[in-house]
């Protein structure tokens, strides 16, 4: 039976090409893999190989022909014993097997509510729960220990997490309780151990990866994004990476540009990741436990300055905080302050001082940046009609920028002033004490922004 040989597509973008040269002639016997012709694409001259065996019955397109469309019949292959005369007139149009036309229907939009929905305002713990004072550092350690007790597949790996008890002492005591099988010191090799941990998660374990700081996770960011975040999607849901990448993020104090960067907005951009950035010890504990149980890769952004701060933490058997639920720290009526992580310190200080001047600020802690609790922010802005965002990261493509755009799209008519984003300055972090103070966000800047949006 005669088969048509079609003009091939030889690159991802090729639609037509030049049939530069035939390397076979009519009557030649060809085998699979034999080179039939040379074809020029826009990038290169390519050799075109036979797939089927047979005899070249007829050459339909002469060599030197330009602009030959992909899938045009260029020759006819016949079987041994067949005659070229038997060939019916070749079809001139591309065969029906060509790639289907792109679907005409538009892609469905991302599921998103057009206006704010009632926010989840349930308290994080029942009224009357006894509380204890605990540092953020202790809260994170307790969260990890509780989850490791509950699930044999949870383990911690990172630089100095075991025998040294943690570079920032977050993993203190864990080696003693869980042993070296589950609390693992790694060499200084972030790219490698992030990849090994991600592979272990593919294999069904639930790793917690400590980066000594998130600055060093830059070495590992390919594994975090290309491997951990995308595999569930690329595998059609077959396998993903249930794991936590955690460590201090943002500026500490006087450690210069390479050790002082807030990555919140970077990771929050990636579909497939979840991102938590707690401020208080209670949130650090509750969110960490949720992160470890989550079946997705979670970026857990801690802060060195906050590690030693003490907060009330509920004394409960199993205290967790859900992702995607912001916390309203104080209610107010004149302006909405939205922040997360250490930015909350400036937001709360500013709210105290503004109250003395008679300005009532509502302060919202986002707590997680992916998912993000838009509804709580929008409901507040619809009430106060003004908004200032506060974060330590760089100003370009910041979380504040994203919130501003969301508020504009979904609550534009409620705004009485443009939203202002208070951020770190658009400079690498300087070392000098006075310059560093100016590079970071300050409470005074938040107060000035509030006065600007309230026209005071």
């Amino acid at each position: 039976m005669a088969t048509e040989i079609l003009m091939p597509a030889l690159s991802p973008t090729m639609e037509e090409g030049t049939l530069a040269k035939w390397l076979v002639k009519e009557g030649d016997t060809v085998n699979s893999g034999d080179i039939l012709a040379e074809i020029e694409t826009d990038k290169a001259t390519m050799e075109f190989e036979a797939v089927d065996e047979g005899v070249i019955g007829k050459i339909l397109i002469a060599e030197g022909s330009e602009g030959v469309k992909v899938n045009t019949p260029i020759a006819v292959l016949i079987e041994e014993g067949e005659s070229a005369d038997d060939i019916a007139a070749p079809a001139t149009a591309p065969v029906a097997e060509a790639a289907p036309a792109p679907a005409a229907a538009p892609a469905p939009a991302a599921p998103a509510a057009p206006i704010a929905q009632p926010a989840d305002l349930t308290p994080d713990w029942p009224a009357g729960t006894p509380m204890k004072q605990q540092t953020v550092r202790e809260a994170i350690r307790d969260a990890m220990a509780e989850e490791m007790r509950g699930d044999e597949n949870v383990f911690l790996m990172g630089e100095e997490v075991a025998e040294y008890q943690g570079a920032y002492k977050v993993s203190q005591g864990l080696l003693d309780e869980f042993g070296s099988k589950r609390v693992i010191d790694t060499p200084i090799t972030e790219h490698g151990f992030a990849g090994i941990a991600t592979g272990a998660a593919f294999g069904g374990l639930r790793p917690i990866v400590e980066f000594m700081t998130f600055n060093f996770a830059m070495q590992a960011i390919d594994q975090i994004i290309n491997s951990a975040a995308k595999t569930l999607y690329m595998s059609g849901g077959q396998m993903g990476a249930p794991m936590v990448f955690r460590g201090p993020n943002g500026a500490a104090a006087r450690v210069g540009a390479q050790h002082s960067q807030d990555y919140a907005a970077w990771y929050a951009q990636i579909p497939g990741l979840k991102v938590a950035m707690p401020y208080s010890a209670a949130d650090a504990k509750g969110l960490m436990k949720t992160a470890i149980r989550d079946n997705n890769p979670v970026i857990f952004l801690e802060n060195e300055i906050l590690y030693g701060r003490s907060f009330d933490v509920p004394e409960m058997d199993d205290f967790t905080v859900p992702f995607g639920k912001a916390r309203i720290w104080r209610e107010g009526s004149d302006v909405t302050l939205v922040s997360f992580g250490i930015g909350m310190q400036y937001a709360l200080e500013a709210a105290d001082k503004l109250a003395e001047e008679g300005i009532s600020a509502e302060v919202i802690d986002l707590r997680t940046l992916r998912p993000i609790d838009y509804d709580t922010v929008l409901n507040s802005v619809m009430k106060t009609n003004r908004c200032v965002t506060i974060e330590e990261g760089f100003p370009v493509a910041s979380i504040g920028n994203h919130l501003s755009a969301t508020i504009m799209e979904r609550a534009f008519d409620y705004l009485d002033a443009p939203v202002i984003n208070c951020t770190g300055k658009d400079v690498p972090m300087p070392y000098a004490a006075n310059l560093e103070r100016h590079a970071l966000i300050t409470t005074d800047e938040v107060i000035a922004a509030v006065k600007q949006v309230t026209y005071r």
Partner: protein
Amino acid sequence: MAARKSTKKPNVSADELKGYYRDMLLIRRFEEKAGQLYGMGLIGGFCHLYIGQEAVVVGLEAAAKEGDKRITSYRDHGHMLACGMDPNGVMAELTGREGGYSKGKGGSMHMFSKEKHFYGGHGIVGAQVPLGAGLAFSDKYRGNDNVTFAYFGDGAANQGQVYETFNMAAIWDLPVIFVIENNQYAMGTAQARSTSTADIYTRGEPFGIPGEIVDGMDVLAVKAASEKAVAHCRAGNGPYILEVKTYRYRGHSMSDPAKYRTREEVQKMRDERDPIEQVRDMLLTGKHATEDDLKAIDKEIKAIVNASAEFAKTSPEPALEELWTDIYA
């Protein structure tokens, strides 16, 4: 006992040898069909064919047992077929259809099968090496004796994360076999122009990882090496490196004109070292099979491959709702 002149005296049964012939032929014919569908515009983007390298995966898989894991780069079609994944599902993923292993969302370079313990299909050169060591870590953590085959090319062997992984695999005794598929060209760059070491497996020596060179055009040599490496890993002795010398007949991807080597070089390899022809000769000269037996296998393979192409053409495109699924578990 006097040494035999021929090393080609295979200590395998006729059925086993026929099995290798069949498995390699399936990969070859499948890849030829994939190339054809690419030419017709049914397969898009990048498509890296495995033709010429068939003996590597077929030989390696000969020593695997249930529960063993495998992971590789973007040149992954052969690995999937060799570990028993359904040709229909692989081909339909190449055409981006609902019936593909990743529902059409992964494509040629990103395919997975939890059932067959195939962990991809990775498009970032070298990234699969620490991931593979991590899979091995999970088996060691659980205390079973499964091993992981982590495949990478001579090009990936120059990525830093490979050596970060060698170091950790060695200090933690991970049951991982690093399979360097040395096809001599990192895309268009010959090994001698990119790699300071002639024998790449020797790069494991400073880490204390044993390794050896294997003739990757000889499926029985690969199988023997695989058995040795697997035994080493299963016994808890840590990682092992196999540098398997092979050759890809086609370009790096479908759009590579392969001007960095001569047509004669490729032809010589095809004529003298072809892995499928070698087994075919063994079967016929050893009277393990007749021409008719082999023709029957050829026919069976052709039917499987044609059916996979038909499935891949007729399986519908994924529903548009699929755009928004599988982002979070």
